């Protein structure tokens, strides 16, 4: 879909037509056996693609894919024999059957990880071979099933398709493979694909960005299973018969080898690997001396790639010259961009107000041509709605305020005219929406009790087994403020923090966010209600660039669905464009242009911390929790971070909750502090009050024998009265 955003060029169209000619034309001049190899390659490529989606992109190991292919094949056999369903109709049936079973296996994946999942899928594959594929109703008797597929049409006349014929099958396979590659590529470049990468990169970070990890894992299993089932359907349709031994567990291992050799995450790699393995099979079949070595070579290739060439075949292009690499990528981009260009040609921009409303009342992007007049905007009373099965959720958008300002400036109006419900802080907000270091100041906030509550944690108690980690802690964050949570090591800060963000379940107590009770909501639901967070151990997605990491964060703002992504529908493409605009906006604000398109691995640590903050900002969450954001930063970097956070609060109106050990940093940053020791809150107040607090000093310096004093202070006795 990325390519869909670029304009199609004439050169690409020419190239595509030429490629089509070659792909179609060569079969009339090639020897018959080569056609068989080509068909086999495409079958392998199809299964490899299904593994790329599941194991490569989402990181879920599957050693059961041959079984899914088998399910597709045998189900096809059943519906062909029992209901005489003709070929094209059997294809979705097979896909859905295999996809459904795969999704069931995915439910297991939700509970187990990595190695356990590998064993679970292997056990499934074994069970399928021993039990499922021996059931007469599914696989016929004697270990083989028949699927007498009718030919379509009348012999001699044009639309005559006999799928047993190699040429016919070639075209069918080509079409299906092309559709699979295109669809997968579209998914990869869409919100769905990014959610998948996020799940693989860091499930916790993904959830904190509003991604429903469960749903996306199951979706990946279903999609992957569907493609494998389709492959099975095609095979049996062509061969008219399928035997159980073709779907044994070691065939699954073979398929995994194909995917890994291709590079596991790469679609062109999967296709190339399919070609490679099919060619090897043909070669070894022909040459007497090599017979029996095929399996050795396949397994050997797998081992070699694992140990020495982790990127597999897809890594080859990057080893060639840059021009060759560019050409390669460009070629692969051709088909999708053609399609998009074709669509774009006749398209007329629709009235933006029909799209999902947002505080900007017109999509997330700043596109002069489409910005509505203030009249329409106020008439719309923009409220953000993120539709979901659980009912609409009103996701507040802090970033929208700056977008509003930019638009207002462009239109020469006052921001409040565009956004009637501006936050309290807007009055103090500077007109610049660009982060200039050193411009942020500690602002004078209205008295605390007068400001609305953003987050309230009440009576939070967290017990692990016999240990009480947090004991009736209270914490509030009010609008426009920066709150600090400090305490000695092992005091329970992190546990409390995680209870608020949803990673821990408190034994008792409640958490309210913007007035909504979120105590029982999972992490991603809290994210959708306006809670963002960063992590002490950086949880950026390692295989993505900075820009792509930020793009994942647009998830909550993007209401487009799976089908839209799969087909690169106009709505999906537009939303993609809008999401990218939004990220570009944040990149501009924070001056991240230089690093935006670099992969996150290899960037200096200070920059990574900044990117994590940026990612939270992209979600537009008006409340962000930061877990030891200065950890690992030196003095200068810490000062820069403090400055940035102050600016974020001032210009975007975002309220912050910060855990930190660096007391100096926290006192310079926050408006209000909570101190926790051994699970209990021992003090709260402004930084000045807290620093003078005897109990706090004692807690940090560890003076024995101050227990009574602490209680005295906590009870409110004035400092002199000890």
């Amino acid at each position, binding site marked *: 879909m990325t390519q869909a955003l670029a304009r199609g060029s004439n050169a690409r169209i020419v190239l595509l037509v030429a490629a089509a000619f070659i792909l179609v034309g060569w079969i009339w001049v090639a020897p018959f056996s080569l056609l068989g190899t080509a068909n086999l390659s495409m079958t392998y490529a199809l299964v490899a693609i299904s593994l790329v989606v599941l194991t490569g992109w989402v990181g879920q190991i599957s050693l059961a894919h041959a079984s899914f292919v088998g399910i597709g094949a045998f189900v096809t056999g059943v519906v062909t024999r029992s209901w005489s369903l003709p070929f094209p109709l059997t294809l979705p049936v097979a896909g859905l059957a295999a996809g459904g079973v795969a999704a069931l296996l995915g439910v297991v994946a939700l509970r187990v990880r990595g190695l356990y999942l590998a064993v679970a899928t292997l056990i499934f594959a074994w069970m399928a*071979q021993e*039990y499922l594929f021996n059931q007469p109703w599914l696989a016929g008797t004697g270990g083989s099933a028949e699927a007498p597929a009718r030919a379509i049409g009348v012999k001699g006349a044009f639309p005559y398709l006999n799928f047993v014929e190699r040429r016919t099958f070639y075209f069918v396979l080509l079409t299906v493979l092309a559709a699979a590659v295109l669809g997968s590529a579209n998914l990869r470049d869409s919100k769905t694909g990014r959610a998948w990468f996020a799940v693989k990169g860091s499930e916790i970070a993904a959830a904190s960005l509003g991604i429903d990890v469960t749903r996306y894992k199951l979706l990946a299993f279903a999609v992957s299973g569907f493609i494998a089932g389709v492959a099975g359907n095609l095979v049996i349709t062509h061969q008219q018969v399928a035997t159980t031994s073709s779907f044994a567990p070691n065939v699954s291992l073979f398929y995994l080898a194909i995917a890994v050799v291709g590079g596991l995450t790469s679609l062109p790699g999967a296709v190339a690997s399919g070609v490679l393995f099919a060619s090897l099979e043909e070669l070894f079949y022909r040459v007497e001396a090599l017979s029996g070595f095929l399996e050795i070579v396949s397994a050997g290739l797998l*081992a070699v790639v694992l140990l020495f060439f982790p990127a597999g075949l897809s890594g080859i292009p990057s080893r060639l010259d840059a021009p060759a690499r560019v050409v390669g990528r460009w070629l692969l981009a051709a088909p999708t961009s053609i399609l998009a260009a074709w669509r774009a040609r006749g398209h007329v921009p629709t009235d933006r107000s029909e799209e999902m409303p947002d505080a900007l009342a017109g999509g997330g992007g700043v596109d002069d041509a489409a910005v509505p007049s203030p009249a329409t905007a106020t008439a719309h009373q923009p409220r953000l709605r993120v539709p979901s099965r659980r009912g609409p959720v009103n996701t507040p958008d802090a970033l929208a305020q700056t977008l509003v300002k930019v638009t207002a400036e462009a239109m020469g109006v006052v921001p409040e005219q565009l956004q009637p419900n501006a936050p309290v802080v807007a009055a103090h907000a500077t007109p610049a929406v660009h982060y200039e270091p050193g411009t942020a100041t500690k602002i004078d906030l209205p008295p605390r009790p007068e400001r609305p509550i953003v987050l309230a944690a009440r009576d939070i108690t967290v017990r692990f087994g016999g240990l009480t980690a947090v004991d009736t802690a209270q914490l509030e964050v009010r609008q426009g403020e920066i709150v600090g949570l400090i305490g000695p090591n092992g005091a329970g800060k*992190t546990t409390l923090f995680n209870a608020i963000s949803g990673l821990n379940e408190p034994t008792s107590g409640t958490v309210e966010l913007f007035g909504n009770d979120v105590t029982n909501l999972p992490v991603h639901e809290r994210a959708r209600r306006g809670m963002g967070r960063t992590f002490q151990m950086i949880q950026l997605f390692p295989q993505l660039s900075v820009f792509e990491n930020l793009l994942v964060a647009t998830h909550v703002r993007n209401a487009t669905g799976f089908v839209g992504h799969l087909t690169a529908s106009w709505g999906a493409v537009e939303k993609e464009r809008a999401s990218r605009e939004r990220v570009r906006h944040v990149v501009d604000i924070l001056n991240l242009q230089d690093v935006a398109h670099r992969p996150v691995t290899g960037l200096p640590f200070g920059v990574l911390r900044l990117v994590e903050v940026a990612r939270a900002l992209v979600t537009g969450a008006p409340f962000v929790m930061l877990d030891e954001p200065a950890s690992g930063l030196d003095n200068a970097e810490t000062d820069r971070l403090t400055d940035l956070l102050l600016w974020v609060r001032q210009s975007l109106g975002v309220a912050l909750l910060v855990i930190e050990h660096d007391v100096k940093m926290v006192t310079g940053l926050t408006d209000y502090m909570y101190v926790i020791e051994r699970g209990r809150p021992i003090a709260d107040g402004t930084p000045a009050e807290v620093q003078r607090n005897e109990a706090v000093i004692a807690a940090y310096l560890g003076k024995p024998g101050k227990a009574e004093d602490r209680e005295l202070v906590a009870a409110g006795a004035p400092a002199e009265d000890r």
Partner: protein
Amino acid sequence: MIFFLTQLVLATPLVAAYALFALGIVLIYRASRVLNLAHGVMAMVPAYVSFRLRELGLPMPVAILLGVASGAALGAAVEAVFVRRLRKVSPTAQTVGTVAVYGLGVAVIARVFGTTPVRPESAFGDGEILFGSAGISHGQIGLIVVACILTALLFALFRFTSLGLAMRGSASNRTAAALMGVNPDRTTAVAWMMGGALAAVAGIMLSSVSTLDPFGFPLQALPAFVAALIGGLGSMPGALAGSLVVGLTIGAVPGLTNAPIIGGFVSSIGASQAVLAVVAFVVMAMRGEKLSASNVRSAGLS
């Protein structure tokens, strides 16, 4: 009823085989946090080695000994080549590494020995002891006895020797073990060798009471994975308990063919495997981990 009990008794050799497999799997897992998917192959290769040596005329004990040695060597090789090198990549990569070993093992054996099943001779002779209408062969009894002896030896090793102590410490806490003066890489290698040897014994014994072929035989170890999973993967006694459950399940299922209602399902091909798979999934679902805070923070900076 008699029939059912007979089936259970007949399953005892299976329990023994699975116990040996599961012990090896757990040993390896505790030492390196890797599930050795190639365990079945590490049982099969030594079985073939011992078979070929016997064919070449070597005395039975020598052939078996060398077979077991080949199993240990294979374990050490896999650890050195795949597990150690891929440790810094990810546990997933290590697991896929064992998959590669599986593929290579099957492929090489198929090439060298062909795919026709063979029947190695039993170390314990061909006699049989009869239970009513069913019989347990000497080979199967031998399997049970050897399994018991090896299990006892293993437990003794861990309880009473310094090597055992070092291995337990390493498995419990790698960092702490290093600080005590134990080299965790070395204990891991030993664990893999022992796991390989255990698999070899199981493979050699088992192949002589069933058949040996490159594609089917490695899958015999799969129920042992279920056994290890049931036992919790972290403990040897757990592995034994799991093997009991698994072996009895596989034995008991055919024994229920005369039972009402489920008799029909149970007599279909592969019913015991299906039951076992369900059991495995249920266990995994109950033991599973959800998204939790413990995943967020590991050793931090300070």
